[in-house]
């Protein structure tokens, strides 16, 4: 006879193994980067411009560049994405066209980032004549993360129970009041999750900024949004493959800074999300 407890144990073992297979590589990557990168981290590394053909000095311009790009992308993508999500989930009628639009948006999230880079080059840099600039780069990154923000925000809005909407409407509130006071506040944690995913992607991608903003080497800080800028992921690519004889610890140090930056931005969003979840009274 088969022992049901044994099959449960076997199933449990495989489930645990699968989890372990995910956790271990991620842990290893983080450990290696910290181990090799930490010796490079110093105040000078964080605050100085790159020197001697990027073989010494710091990465300050790249940090600032990435911060600019990510902020720009979010400022552009979050409002537009949120408004589009509100329209799609609350106002649009459920017909073939809307379903095609929703499907298209979901699929856009899977388009390779280099395609967004080419698109940004064609539209912002060349056609709109923004040039190779922070503006072009931010907009390109913004367009890249829009599908992620729209999809997650839409799911967050749709997960707010229909009964809350009915109650609000039955009290004589208008549709917009219902969205503003009942639906949105309850969807904010989910919307922030989308923003976190978008942030991480915008900060880490190299291809979209390659043609639209990134400078190979720029020893000063950008003065306006029409300037070129250095960015951490591209800088990492440059010192890893394009410049010979760069010390290993500088490369890993750069990776560590990029990782920490993304983690820190995520942390801010997670704290905000936590606060809203705590306020949520159900």
């Amino acid at each position, binding site marked *: 006879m088969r022992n049901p407890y044994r099959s449960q144990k076997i199933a449990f073992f495989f489930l645990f193994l699968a989890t372990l297979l995910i956790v271990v590589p991620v842990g290893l990557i983080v450990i290696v980067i910290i181990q090799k990168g930490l010796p490079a981290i110093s105040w000078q590394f964080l605050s100085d411009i790159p020197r001697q053909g990027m073989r010494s000095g710091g990465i300050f311009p790249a940090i600032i560049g990435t911060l600019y790009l990510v902020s720009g992308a979010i400022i552009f993508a979050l409002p537009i994405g949120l408004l589009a999500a509100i329209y799609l989930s609350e106002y649009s009628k459920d017909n073939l066209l809307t379903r095609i639009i929703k499907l298209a948006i979901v699929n856009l999230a899977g388009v390779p980032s280099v395609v967004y880079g080419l698109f940004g080059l064609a539209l912002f840099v060349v056609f709109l004549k923004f040039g190779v600039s922070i503006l072009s780069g931010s907009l390109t990154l913004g367009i890249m993360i829009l599908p992620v923000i729209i999809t997650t925000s839409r799911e967050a809005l749709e997960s707010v129970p229909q009964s*809350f909407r009915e109650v*609000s*409407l*039955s009290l004589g509130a208008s549709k917009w009041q219902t969205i503003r006071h009942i639906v949105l506040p309850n969807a904010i944690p989910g919307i922030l999750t989308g923003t976190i995913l978008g942030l991480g992607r915008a900060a880490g991608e190299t291809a979209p900024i390659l043609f639209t903003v990134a400078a190979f080497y720029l020893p000063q800080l950008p003065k306006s949004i029409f300037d070129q800028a250095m960015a951490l992921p591209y800088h990492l690519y440059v010192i890893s493959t394009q410049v010979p004889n760069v010390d290993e610890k500088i490369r890993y140090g750069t990776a560590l800074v990029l990782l920490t930056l993304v983690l820190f931005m995520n942390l801010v969003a997670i704290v905000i999300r936590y606060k809203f979840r705590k306020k949520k009274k159900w």
Partner: protein
Amino acid sequence: MVNPVRNNKLAENAKMKDKNTISNGVKFAIKNLDIWFGTIHALKQVSMEIEANEILGAIGPSSSGKTTFLRMLNRLNDLSPNFRMNGEVKLENDNIKNIDAQFLRKRVGMVFALPLSLPLSIFDNVAYGVKMHGVKNKKLLQNKVEESLKEAYLWDEVKDRLNESAFKLSGGQQQRLCIARTLAVSPEVILFDEPCSGLDPISTAKVEDAMVKLKQKYTIVLVTNNVKQAARVSDRTAFFLNGELIELDKTELIFTGPKDKRTDGYIRGKFG
């Protein structure tokens, strides 16, 4: 089946009726109403009048159209994408199609089957509707909240914890909170959609008491699966079956000598 204490209350309230009637006695006039959801014919040729300051009970087996009928009165059916209707529903001589849904729903409030508190504090739940209609004055809001909670017999139980989450209240308290929330926007008509289906007998009695007293100021339409509840609180009772209004008469007559065999069968529990 018939509770003598409540019957006394009904008798008292009957005297009040003439004094407090707001309109000419007819609140809703419904003529040849047909409702479809897609291909489903949910209501068939319903014609009736709902008088001011009465409790109209609507009974019938599930999917008999009684909830559709109720949700018609504040146009909540409009939210369903494939809803269609024919015929006319008049609220005091105005066709409800011509009244802006927002204003109609302010005049015709609704209490749902489950105690659906909004994810807000007790205070904000009651103040929500009032705030949405543009009242910002704190003092005014406080007065309104207190008044409404008292009217729903909840004030004494919650007055010290108005800022707590509404979800901390028991089911019966939440349902009375929902009643208070509806009262706060000063409606003329209150629709109850099986308000006691999730409540214990004591909470049910409290909600029923509240309804009977509310009748003095408001017109009440009560949809219920509990035939005895209709017998206890309603002045007139309507029996729905398969989307048709089979019979509508004084509650005593419906429960003692219904004209239609099907009504008789349903209230005796032979089907449904």
